[in-house]
């Protein structure tokens, strides 16, 4: 057991490592995600005991075992529901959910969208490796069409779910994407999510080197990412490429196009990222294969968080009606006395 920690005591990465041996495959992208989380948390200045990690089932969902905080490895797909109950009853806690593309988008899709639309103040990390890892390699809701897996020897036929797009469709108030190998970016996004009041949804592109190696190679590999990765920054134009020579512009009919800077195209014509503009986020979420893959914060707006509302309601009820009085509710309606 870990000894007492107080907000004062400055914590270090080690403080967040549990005594459990990490059981992921050597080379799994999950290691980096874990490491970045353990590095960021000390900077947030919250006492360790105020943190809870809740997960479903999957390789990614083993995450809580390795964090020296409170942790709950629950049921396939149900982490958001459990986290919702916890956060309503315990608004003082910082609740993180770790889930996978199968856990969060296949069996757990409904709980995910309902958590997001309610805007309950939890942070959801969706480890997207486009495969079912723990069950040894079946295709997942994010797998590309035609994918040959154990359960689809002739290729899958399911049009993939776009996690960012579905989160936007549920009107999530914070929607971001990052990648296992982008260590700094991971940390930044984790911080932003922590600071956001309300549901924060983070898709993390993660490599499963055993069952789906290289799924994100183009976006994350040093040699290719400059052309295939688009870093979103609020208020900044959408520029990418080795020499940052390419940009994204919107045609009249709101369809995006890639333009080369210089020859006649001025940066001012480019799309300027705006985290508060819904149409912007939506268009960026479905740029498609011919475009670079955006990472960063697609959308960030403030809306009443569900737990805020619930507890405000309880408070106002107490103010208006006074603290609950059992005798009173027992005697609701008509009563009579028998001598």
């Amino acid at each position, binding site marked *: 057991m870990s000894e007492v920690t107080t907000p004062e005591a400055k914590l270090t990465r080690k403080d967040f490592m549990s005594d459990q041996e990490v059981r992921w495959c050597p080379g799994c992208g999950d290691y980096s995600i874990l490491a970045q989380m353990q590095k960021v948390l000390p900077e947030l200045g919250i006492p360790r005991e*105020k943190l809870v990690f809740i997960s479903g089932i999957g390789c990614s969902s083993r995450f809580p075992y390795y964090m020296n905080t409170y942790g*709950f490895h629950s049921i396939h797909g149900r982490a958001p529901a459990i986290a919702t109950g916890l956060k309503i009853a315990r608004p003082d806690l910082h609740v993180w959910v770790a889930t996978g593309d199968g856990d969060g988008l296949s069996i757990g899709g409904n709980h995910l969208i309902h958590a997001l639309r309610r805007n309950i103040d939890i942070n959801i990390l969706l480890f997207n490796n486009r495969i079912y890892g723990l069950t040894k390699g079946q295709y997942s809701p994010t797998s590309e069409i035609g994918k040959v897996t154990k359960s689809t020897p002739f290729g899958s036929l399911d049009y993939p779910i776009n996690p960012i797009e579905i989160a936007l469709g549920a009107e999530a108030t914070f929607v971001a994407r990052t990648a296992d190998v982008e260590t700094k970016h991971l940390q930044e996004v984790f911080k932003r999510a922590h600071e956001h009041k309300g549901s924060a949804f983070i898709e993390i592109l993660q490599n499963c080197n055993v069952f789906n190696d290289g799924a994100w190679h183009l976006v994350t590999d040093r040699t290719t990412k400059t052309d295939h990765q688009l870093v979103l920054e609020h208020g900044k134009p959408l520029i990418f490429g080795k020499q940052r020579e390419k940009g994204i512009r919107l045609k009249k009919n709101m369809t995006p196009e890639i333009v080369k800077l210089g020859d006649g195209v001025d940066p001012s014509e480019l799309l300027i990222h705006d985290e508060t503009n819904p149409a912007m986020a939506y268009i960026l979420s479905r740029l498609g294969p011919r475009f670079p893959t955006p990472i960063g914060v697609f959308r960030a707006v403030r809306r009443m968080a569900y737990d805020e509302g619930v507890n405000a309601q309880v408070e106002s009820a107490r103010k208006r009606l006074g603290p609950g009085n059992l005798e009173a509710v027992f005697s609701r309606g008509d009563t*009579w006395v028998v001598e």
Partner: protein
Amino acid sequence: MTTQAGTPPHPTQDPIQVRKRHEELEEVVVRFAGDSGDGMQLAGMQFTNETAVAGTDIATLPDFPAEIRAPAGTLFGVSGFQVNFSSHDIFTPGDNPDVLVMMNPAALKMNLQELKPNGIIIADTAEFNEHNLKKAGYETNPLEDGSLTQYQVFPLDITSMTLRAVEELKLSVKVATRCKNFYALGLTSWLFTRPIEPTIRWIEKRFKKTPELVEANVRALKAGYHFGETAEMFAVQYEVKPARLTPGKYRNITGNTATALGFVAAAERAGVPLFLGSYPITPASDILHEMASFKNFHVYTFQAEDEIAAVGSALGAAYGGAIGICTTSGPGMLLKQETINLAVMVELPLIIANIQRAGPSTGMPTKTEQADLLMALYGRSSESPVVVLAPATPGECFSMAFEAVRIATKYMVPVIYLSDGYLGNGAEPWRIPQVSELPQIHVQFRTDPEGFQPYLRDPETLSRSWVRPGTPGLEHRVGGLAKEDVTGHVSYDPLNNERMVRLRAEKVARVAMDIPPTDVRGDPAGELLVIGWGSTYGSIVEAVERLRVQGTSVSHVHLRYLNPLPPDLKDIIRRFEKVLVAELNMGQLLKIIRAEYLVDAKGVNKIQGQPFKVGELMEKMQETLEG
């Protein structure tokens, strides 16, 4: 209808008599019935309230279709409400009504065969037109074709009289007509000298936003009442004296309300917040509705996206140190089992209230049944022991709900609470307890890091300690994978797994040491022992008592604790020659009793969505004794 001093109940038809004759009765069963849009449930509930307030004992049986407002005049659209009220204690709504208040032909068609010989029929003639008669399958008008001579029939144009009563208010006919249930109620109230003030108060509260409706309904109510008084048609006014109930302050309560109050009271006595995660489903929804109004207590109610999220949120709250509860019915219960399994594994308190209804599948959602017992015990994958409780009467729902919370928190175990539609919607007078009478529930959250291990157990209860996240130094991880004894670390060690499976079973078994002795109604030994559980209590009690009066050797044990079973049950059973298990299913407790005690018990079973009639039970008991 048992009249006193043998005076015949027939109203003497002497026209010149003005002052009405008064007759005292011991027990009356009234059944209101009409279209699901006619407000019969309301009339019934208000009548129940009036007579309860007047101090009689009561038992009710609401019986309505699954459709919200099925088309007018159809047989399947008939909605009924039966009230039994009496000056002595009663246990059932009664097998057969003494009085039928019938708002249309379909209602009469559906209910007549149950009316007692010489019973009273009050019928709204306005609705007995060609169209409706045909819908109900009547060739001719029963009110006129002499087919009801063996009853006392009072044919009244309730509709027109209602319209006349509210005439001045200039309401639309549609709205005005809606008041007729209160007219009928007023008349019935007069007929049995029930006070209408409680109903007037209720109307004023219910419609306070629309004064014209208050006015209209009150007028209709009074008009009905005064009609009884003045109309010569009614020569006799009946009265039922108050019952001799234990002194105290009373209210009339349904099982669902009592359940809600029991949970809230328990949370208050434990000094712990309560979290209800629920998804609406008939007949459980009312508990959610009731609890949602307790926001000023430390009560959270969460209407989740489905039952899985409902129970998940409750477990999450329990993990956070609240009393996690969910309420549901059969089809929703199925969906909670995986989460209950997790609760068994992480050993957190969780209360799942299943208000059983008739199945399988969607079945008959508004009808009652007791067929979810085996599912409660065995409906989860692998070995997953939980505590199972069942209240026996609407009022008892309060104490058993309270008990569910006590056990769940003391043993850190899921408790399944089995009520049913009959208990949930049925009502009885309930002696309002003093808060001080209620036991304290001692909840101790662990805070001491010294020597803490997540799965260290209390030597007596075998429960692990309840730790609230946020407690410094107790950070730890739990989950659904097999756990190592004491540390709770993930472990696939074969022997450890068997040890943990047996520990969880033993923990539940020990609850048996913590429950009251089983009481046997009747002689402690004899020829026949009738075992029941849940809502069949009233019918069994009454059947057994009637037989005992006839000198039959029959006793009754009613189980509130279904898992673990009471330790003294074995000996009790041994003391009887024959055992009969009465349940509203195909013999579920029966299976358990046979397996557990190897006794050749027989079952009396009914799967009709209706409670047992006392007569049915008496017959079967006699058969068993003879056979």
